């Protein structure tokens, strides 16, 4: 709980500082509102257009959340496959790294071109960008089970399934959560990026990314700011949901999992 508080408290302090500097800059440097709207203008838009923001939030949340959940299922399955043998890892791992290093702005238009520019394609963009951290971290956890523990299960003539469910998966859980935390934030990036490309030919999808391009073209910079804030809020929500889940699952033994063999 204290960790959670520290995670929230300090960023909050930074936020207050940034807003103060931002406000002062707007006043003293006389920056035009379409370049940098003052904080209160953004706040006003946040309140006035909360209906638009909420519906855009919902659309993007479904896209990011859907892609995220898909990436968890697929990522864990792929990690289980990778954990089976070093040969499999050696032959396939480079391609998952490609997944991570090719910029999402290059992949997104392709996906939208291939699968149409609907909500599901945007979900797919989020899925692709979330996949690698989950594969990489879960695989790492699955293959670092100490040999003695594996031998212990072998001595009990435990079937493969028991070894998986009662040893490998629980052992990999802390690593899986590392991946989940990384992907929680970037799922929103994926969804928003996907929408940027969807907007050119989609009509009524209206997520945060779509609205951002719209606000930008209309020079509604205050609305643009409000949209960006809403997108960050979504990312934060995902992140803290995962962090809370992690705390629930690991609080009993987390530390010991990190140093299981230190006696």
């Amino acid at each position, binding site marked *: 709980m204290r960790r959670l508080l520290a995670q929230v408290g300090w960023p909050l302090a930074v936020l207050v500082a940034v807003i103060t500097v931002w406000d002062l800059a707007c006043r003293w440097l006389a920056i035009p509102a379409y370049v940098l709207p003052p904080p209160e203008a953004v706040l006003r838009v946040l309140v006035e257009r909360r209906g638009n923001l909420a519906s855009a939030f919902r659309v993007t949340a479904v896209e990011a959340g859907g892609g995220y959940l898909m990436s968890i299922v697929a990522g864990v399955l792929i990690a289980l496959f990778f954990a089976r043998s070093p040969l499999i890892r050696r032959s396939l791992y480079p391609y998952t790294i490609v997944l991570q290093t090719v910029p999402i702005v290059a992949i997104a238009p392709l996906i939208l071109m291939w699968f149409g520019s609907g909500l599901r394609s945007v979900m797919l963009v989020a899925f692709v960008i979330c996949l690698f951290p989950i594969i990489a971290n879960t695989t790492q956890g699955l293959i670092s089970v*100490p040999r*003695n*523990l594996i*031998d*212990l*299960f*072998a*001595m*009990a*003539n*435990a079937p493969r399934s*028991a070894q998986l469910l*009662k*040893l490998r998966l*629980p052992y990999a*859980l802390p690593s899986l959560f590392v991946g989940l935390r990384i992907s929680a934030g970037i799922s929103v990036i994926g969804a928003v990026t996907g929408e940027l490309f969807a907007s050119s030919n989609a009509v009524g999808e209206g997520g945060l990314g779509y609205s951002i391009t719209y606000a930008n073209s209309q020079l509604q910079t205050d609305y643009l700011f409000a949209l960006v804030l809403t997108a960050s809020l979504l990312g934060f929500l995902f992140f803290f949901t995962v962090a809370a889940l992690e705390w629930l699952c690991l609080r*009993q*033994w987390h*530390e*010991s*999992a990190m140093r*299981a*063999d230190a*006696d």
Partner: protein
Amino acid sequence: MSTTPQPAFISVVGATKRWSNGVTVLDGITLTADRGDFVSLIGPSGCGKSTLLRILAGLTPLGAGSVRLDGMAPEAAREIMSFIFQDATLLPWRTVRSNVELGLELEGRTPTAQRREISASMLRLVGLSDVAHLHPRQLSGGMRMRVSIARALATRPRILLMDEPFGALDEMTRDLLNEELLRLREQERFTTFFVTHSVSEAVFLSTRILVLAAKPGRIAREIRVPFEGPRSAELRSAPEFLRLVGEVSTALRSVQCDNPPENP
């Protein structure tokens, strides 16, 4: 338990093991153990003690020779065998109780209620009843080792393989657990192979001590420990005990000094 008229409960004949890199780690190990024996393996680091134990457990495949445990090959004998590792190898996400039940759970023959009973009695046996609900990280090193022993005994093994189980503990805890192990042996009557670096521990616990030499690993000496009846802490200061400690130490020194094989 079984009525097989085998001459020896455990027999190893000409066990040889060579790693894929060509190094021979064990060369023609031949030994037998009777029911209830407590055999200690002692020798220089890297002489293959752990490897021998893992071969007995079927965890490392044998190169040449044969291993029979109660008439069975190692893999089949796992049913009546438990392995205790140097670290406690507890599952950190399980409570002490459920760690003790792991072996029974994986075997899948004992119903839950009965597992509960067995784990409770095993924890009583090692004096840990009041920490049954804790997680391993909340225990001291000695307590963790006790849990590991309770887990190993929960399946009622006839054979116990222990690889430096007390190596990481302080001397006082080690002595205490040694006495506990003797008491458990009185009750459970298992046959034990015990790897250690401590000469006095070996003398205190064993019925026989095998001194191994290195490169390649082979049995250099066998020393019988002839103490009759139940042993207690006082034994450690008996003259006969000290004499045996001296004898084993000398044997150990001589294998550590000369590398070429010597046949006693």
